[in-house]
Structures are given as structure tokens and as C-alpha cells.
């Protein structure tokens, strides 16, 4: 029993889950229960918790992809721009501005948008793995250019579309639950299965710690780097689809703006070391929920939106400090010395 307890608290996702639950609890108390209430409206569930899951869908997907990138000691700051590109392509196709031969097919729009995401990811991966450019610089190129490219695709306009099939990506419900949640379950599920059933996870951690030694141990480092940046790009494009389906159009300026920061934040809250090494995708997904729930909290409490940033900042510091080994050492030592004294007494 004791052993088991030890294991649960050791799990990387333990603290993120606790924090998430605390935020929910705090809100529930503050709103006198309203926060937790879930009702059924028009045959689907309705409530703030559902909102968190639906609105946090994009971020959960991005965080899952970002976790692996960070695990290899890299980073992908281009995800927001990739989202803009993917939305721009999908909406342009549906509008018939792009590839009019396809007749505005939603399926084609999704396929092309995801392909574009994969291409962006391949480009990042190519720069990182083959040209050996530092990840932050390599992905900065696409971050800077990506939004411009999206603008050039839409010729600088906001494209609005009219397609119920496309709206479903964000606004649809299956069994009463929002569709984005299923996308998250599907993508993260596959990823988790892949990481845990194969040695992918071990290889990523090993690459993140020491890529040269990993190569010497027989791991095809470049291939894996290429793969994870591609996955990250593909995931970002899916997030872009969700976002553009949500606003029923492509807004290249604002789509995914600064979301890379939130995604990295989510991973950090999940306890993955940003320098590479040990990682947990599940913990990052919880981290994403925490980030989303901060926004929801601020809205629910009617606090001015400006405080979202302040709150996030404070939360980052608190969480990072609590995870910092050094911090634990500094304060743990104090605790221990107290304990020692107690024993002496």
C-alpha cells in the first residue's frame, strides 16, 4: 500500500493533476457550485467543464506534439504560424479560392491543410536534423515567415466560409461531447500508445539527453528528429483546423497568435524538462488543461482579462519553483535540519 502511494506521487502527472483539480475546486467554491454544473442542452452536455475541454482541445494537441519536441532538447515555436497556414489553406479551398477544381470539398480541405502542416514540420525537421540548426532558430524562420505565407495565401484578407461540415470540427457533438475532445483523444491516444508500446519514448529521452551518444548506441537520431518535428507540424495543422472551424473562417493575423508560448508553458507545467530528457505526454495534456482553465477561471470570475497574463505568470513561477530540484534542495535542507534537531531533542 505504502509502496503504491509512493509510486503515484512519483508520477510526473501527479502534481499537474492535483493543480488542475485545485483550480476546479477553487472555481467551484468561488462560483458556489455553478462552475461544476453540467446540464444537457439540445442533446449535448453543457457547462464550464465541457468548455474547458473543448476550448482547450487545440492546446492539448499542440502540447502533446510539443512535449516530444522538447524531450529531444528542441523546441518548435512555429506552431502558431502553422495553424494560420493550415486554416488559410482549408478555408481557401472550401471557398474555392484555392484549387477550385476540388469544388470546395471539406475532405480535400482537411487533407491539404494537414499535408501543409506535415510539410512545415518536415521543413523544420530538415533544418534541425540535417542542417543541424538550433531548433529555436530553425523554427523561428517559419514563425516569422509562416504568417506572411498564410497572408499571401489569403491575399491578406479574412476568409469566411459557409460549411456546416467544416463547422463540425469545432462545434460538433458526438454522444453529447464536443468533437474536438474526440480529436484529442484520438491523436493523444495514438501517440501514447506509440510511445509506450514501442521504444520511441526511450529513444527520444536518450536523444534529448545526449544525441551523440544515442547515435553511437545505434539510434537513428536524424530520422527521429525529422519524425517528431513532422508530428508537431501535423498536430499544429489539426489545431489550426479546429481554430478556423471555430471562427468559421481564416484569420491569418490572429490564428494561433502566441499560442506556442502557451504550448511550451503547458509542457513545462506538466513537468517535462525543457532541455530534453524525461517527458510525459499525459502530464503535458493536463498542463494544457491547466492553462485553459486559468482563462476560464478569469472569465468565470469576471476578473478583467488583463489578469489572465498576470495569473499565468505567477503560476509559472510557482510551478517551476516547486519543480526545481535546486529549490527543493534549498528548502528541503532546512526542513531536514529541523527534523534532525527534533531527533536530537
Amino acid at each position, binding site marked *: 500500500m505504502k509502496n503504491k502511494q509512493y509510486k503515484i506521487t512519483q508520477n510526473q502527472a501527479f502534481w499537474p493533476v492535483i493543480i488542475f483539480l485545485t483550480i476546479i475546486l477553487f472555481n467551484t467554491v468561488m462560483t458556489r457550485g*455553478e462552475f461544476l454544473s453540467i446540464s444537457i442542452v439540445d442533446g449535448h452536455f453543457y457547462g464550464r467543464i465541457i468548455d474547458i475541454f473543448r*476550448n482547450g482541445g487545440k492546446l492539448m494537441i499542440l502540447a502533446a506534439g510539443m512535449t516530444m519536441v522538447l524531450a529531444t532538447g528542441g523546441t518548435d515555436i512555429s506552431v502558431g504560424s502553422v495553424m494560420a497556414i493550415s486554416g488559410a489553406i482549408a478555408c481557401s479551398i472550401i471557398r474555392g479560392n484555392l484549387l477550385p477544381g476540388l469544388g470546395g470539398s471539406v475532405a480535400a480541405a482537411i487533407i491539404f491543410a494537414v499535408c501543409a502542416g506535415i510539410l512545415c514540420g518536415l521543413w523544420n525537421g530538415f533544418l534541425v536534423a540535417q542542417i543541424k540548426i538550433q531548433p529555436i532558430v530553425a523554427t523561428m524562420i517559419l514563425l516569422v515567415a509562416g504568417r506572411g505565407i498564410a497572408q499571401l495565401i489569403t491575399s*491578406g484578407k*479574412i476568409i469566411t466560409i459557409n460549411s456546416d461540415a467544416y463547422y463540425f470540427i469545432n462545434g460538433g457533438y458526438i454522444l453529447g461531447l464536443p468533437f474536438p475532445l474526440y480529436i484529442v483523444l484520438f491523436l493523444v491516444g495514438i501517440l501514447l500508445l506509440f510511445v509506450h508500446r514501442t521504444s520511441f519514448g526511450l529513444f527520444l529521452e536518450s536523444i534529448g539527453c545526449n544525441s551523440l551518444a544515442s547515435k553511437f548506441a545505434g539510434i537513428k537520431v536524424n530520422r527521429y528528429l525529422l519524425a517528431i518535428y513532422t508530428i508537431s507540424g501535423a498536430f499544429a495543422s489539426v489545431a489550426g483546423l479546429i481554430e478556423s472551424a*471555430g471562427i468559421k473562417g481564416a484569420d491569418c*493575423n490572429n490564428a494561433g497568435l502566441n499560442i506556442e508560448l502557451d504550448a511550451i508553458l503547458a509542457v513545462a507545467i506538466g513537468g517535462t524538462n525543457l532541455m530534453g530528457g524525461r517527458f510525459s505526454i499525459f502530464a503535458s495534456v493536463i498542463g494544457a488543461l491547466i492553462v485553459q482553465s486559468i482563462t476560464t477561471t478569469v472569465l468565470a470570475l469576471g476578473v478583467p482579462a488583463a489578469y489572465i497574463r498576470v495569473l499565468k505568470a505567477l503560476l509559472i513561477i510557482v510551478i517551476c519553483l516547486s519543480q526545481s530540484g535546486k529549490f527543493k534542495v534549498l528548502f528541503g535542507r532546512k526542513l531536514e535540519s529541523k527534523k534532525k534537531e527534533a531527533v536530537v531533542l
Partner: protein
Amino acid sequence: GSAAPETAATTAPATTVEETETPKADAPATDVGSEKLVVGFAQIGQESGWRDAETMSIQTYASEHTDTVELKFADAQQKQENQIKAIKSFIEQDVDVIGLAPVVETGWDQVFAEAQDAGIPIILLDRTADVDESLYATFIGSDFIEEGKEAARQMAELIGGKGKIVELEGTVGASAATDRKTGFDEEIAANYPDIEIVASQTGDFTRAQGKEVMESFLKSNPDIVGVYAHNDDMALGAIEAIKEAGLKPGEDIVTVSVDGVKGIFEAMVAGEANCTVECNPLLGPLFFETAAKLKNGESVEKWVKSVDGVFTSDIAADVIDSRAY
């Protein structure tokens, strides 16, 4: 009340009326220097459908009058620095008139002074700048406070003068947001004591945030009867949120918003939105008119008000096809 006959004309009143005059206005220009009217325009960026329409209006006018007009256009990507740099390079390029839709009200003293030194007049378009009046030639645009007041009156009429409503604000600090809020809140406070604004938060002028904020409003205030949004995009987001909550937008909760973009007309036709206070973005012709006047040294008023209308769902179906944006 909304003036239906008037609005029919607002489709592009400035254009229709003035277009005939345009050649006249340009004629003297050709006489003076036998050269084109060179205009530099520093646009904010692409923030909403409304602004796209404004940009289109300017660019279309310029491309239709290539013999008399030359347009240098810079999109500042929502950054004041970029606008300042663009204006400075317009000054270097020695344009005749500079147009600007300022991204914020403040911070224009230096660059306007430089333009003045170079003898280039500045036209402010659709947003004002907080500078000394002598530094710019004229402001062309609507009265945001009046828009807010009008929205308040429309709202009051729709909900019968009482009930709880919520407000979706625009980007914090933007004059359109501040003034539309001021006008609305003042009008409600002054004349409609039974209307209570129970929540007001920023939706950043975007659909996505409009929706998210509205979702939250609906949960903390299930008994609201109306929503006022500082632009149509946020209203469209709010409509989504209302539908998700199992309520009928346009009936259970009425909407009043500002701008008059096509999307909101579609929503009004579908019965999901109630009213939009137009803020006409088709300022291109009026802008070039004024610029030509300035080049020729004619005097212009300090504030050239654009002609705006109010549209309700009753007439939306009739005018939707004539909407240009």
C-alpha cells in the same frame, strides 16, 4: 428609430454622390503639375472583415483611377512602429498626401511634425489621433460615441427598455472600443434605468474570443436578454455561444452590434441577429476626394463625417444583396 429610406442610400452614399465629381476634382491637379495625385496610405493591418472592406475600397478606387491616382499602400500588421516607419518613407518618397488609420490614438506628434515640415498633409481615416489639431489636415470617419449611443437606443427598443444585458468590448485601449463603450454605457445610464449591464469584458474584436467570453457570460448570467458587441465579428461569435447554450439568438437573447459586415446581415436574415449600427468602411472615394482637394490647396473640414446607417433584421433581407462588404 432606424431610417430605412436613408439606409438604402448608405450602401455607398459617398461613392455614388461623389463619383461624378471625381474627374472634376482631379482636373485641377492635372493642370497644376500635370502629374498624378500620389497618396501614401498606412493601414493598420488586417484585423477584421470591416477593415478588409475599407482596404478594398481604397485599393479598388486606386486601381480604377490609375491615370489620375497613384497609391502607395502599407499594411502595418497592427504595429504602430510599422505605421510610423511607413509614413516616414512616404515622406521620403515625397507623396502628395498621406492617409493613416492610426492603430492607437497616441504617439503621432513626431512623425506628423515631420510630415508638416515636408509640407505633406495628413488625412486620418476612421480613427482619430490624439495630437494637436494643427498637425493633421482632416479626419474622415464616423462618430464612435454616437454609434454607441445609437446601439443603446436600438437595444432598448429591442428589449423593451428593461432587462439584463452583457457587453463584448473591443481591443482594450482602441478608440473604437473605448468610445463605443462610453456612448453605449452613458446612454443606458442616462435614459434606461431598468436596463442593467451585468457583465462587460473584452473579446478583442475577434470571433473566437467573442465566443469564448460569451460562453462564460451565459453561465454566470443565465437570465440575460441581450448582448451588445463592439463589432459584428464578436457578435457572430456570441451567436455561436448562444446556440450552444440551447438558446435562440435573436429571440431569447437579442444582439446589437456595430459595423454592418456581410456576415451579420446573413445572420439577421437567418433571424439570429437583430441589429447592426453601420460604420461605413467604404471610405476610399471620399478619401481620395479629400486628398485631391488638399493637394490643390482647397480647404476641407476638420471632420468629414461618413454617412452611416442602422440596419435591423426586418430590412436585412432587402439590403443584403447590395452590401459591398
